[in-house]
């Protein structure tokens, strides 16, 4: 089970987890869905909001994510990962799709142009990292090399594809792919040593 660690639960807490709730949701149980929403909403809304940087749009996209969770719950396969991972995958995917379709290309170009003087970039990455709620993830991101951190951050939190990342960082594509992979692996090893609390 290499999935994200389950959030620890206080002793005696028997409230169902996202993984417990999903099969009930798949059977059309609206109460279970409400409970699942409560568990996942901060994470879904958080990541969508981070990528879109527009709370009202993030609300709309988060709603789409939850409707999709409801609609496709029966297709979820627990052998492939946790419900929480699935939900953040859906949320991030949708947010990035939306950012790419909404964002006027001029805006993207302007921001890409800003990458010519890399300090602006470092700043974006630093700001994003600093704004993260979870100290462990912040700390683990901080333990990456600059290029690893920039590659992961610009892709995941800013919504750049890896070619754009290569462009703004002035690195070649193979390097960026490698840094992303190394960055994620290192994060995994770093975060894996912590038991992350549930985002509440």
């Amino acid at each position, binding site marked *: 089970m290499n999935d994200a660690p389950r959030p620890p639960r206080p002793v005696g807490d028997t409230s169902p987890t996202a993984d417990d709730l999903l099969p009930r949701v798949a059977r059309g149980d609206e109460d279970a869905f409400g409970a699942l929403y409560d568990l996942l909403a901060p994470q879904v809304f958080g990541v969508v909001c981070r990528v879109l940087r527009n709370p009202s749009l993030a609300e709309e996209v988060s709603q789409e*994510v939850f409707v999709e969770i409801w*609609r496709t719950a*029966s297709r979820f396969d627990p052998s492939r990962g946790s419900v929480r991972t699935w939900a953040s995958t859906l949320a991030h995917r949708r947010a990035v799709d939306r950012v790419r379709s909404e964002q006027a290309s001029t805006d993207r170009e302007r921001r890409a142009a800003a990458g010519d003087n890399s300090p602006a970039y470092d700043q974006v990455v630093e700001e994003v990292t600093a704004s993260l709620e979870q100290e462990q*993830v912040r700390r683990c991101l901080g333990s990456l090399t600059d290029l690893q951190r920039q590659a992961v951050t610009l892709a995941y939190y800013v919504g750049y594809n890896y070619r754009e990342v290569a462009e703004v960082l002035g690195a070649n594509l193979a390097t960026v792919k490698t840094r992303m992979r190394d960055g994620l*692996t290192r994060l995994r090893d770093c975060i894996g040593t912590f038991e992350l609390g549930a985002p509440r």
Partner: protein
Amino acid sequence: MTTTPGLPDVPDLHSLTAPYVLDALPEPELREFEAHLSTCSSCQGEVRELAAVAAQLAAATATEPPEQLRARVLAAIRTTGQEAAPDTGNGRTTVRPTGPDGDSANGETTNGETSSAAESRHQPVTHGHRARRPRRRGLLALAAALVILAGVGVGAGVVQYQQAQQRTAQAVQERERIETVLAAPDSRTVRGDVRGGGKVTVVVSQQLDRAVVLLDGMSRPPRGRTYQLWFISGDSARSAGVVDVTGSGRVSEVLSGVGGANAFGISVEPQGGSKAPTTTPVAAVPLA
């Protein structure tokens, strides 16, 4: 880390696992990688592992959502069907009956019908059995249903071979037109209630500039009146034609010329239609 020496033009698909879980693969690499992923079990393991790390990056952004989102989401799922599990999956959905909701302006649901990109990544790992397949089945079933609703190609008692052939060709064509919209990468589905009974479903692709409109459970308009469809942009409405509602109360149309409209509306107009809506729309759903 594998490389493909001597083949500079062949993207080394295996090296794309990290960009993939970061949603950082542009097309067509995304498609190529997903095709590769379905047959590469070591990639699947890696994607699964890295997706869990990406989920931690998401968790680190956790933010309490606005209060009202919960009520909206719960209202939305009440008007959204659920897909059958893959093993029984024929793409049919069962939509539970919904409570009365007279106010379509607030009652419409932005359904989470997905762009194929999001849908195909239903889970970050595949074992050769992509979510795209049920999706495809769903599309086919929906397209077929729409064609049946449209009354094309399923004429009972068609006796003449030629006529039947023509109808089949028409049905195929109609289905293709519908499917094209459903399969568009940017297609979105929105549903809403029609005042006075009935439901409207619109699948819109701004890219293709087309929309598939399905009306169901519509009551006939008053004598001498007709339903007229509108694409609404800001405060102006462009006619998308008039529709006849027959006894079945079902209508399906493929409309072109969405023109970036941000809403779709239906109003009751004098026979033959109007230049602009003359009555309060009986339905309005947001398209953007």
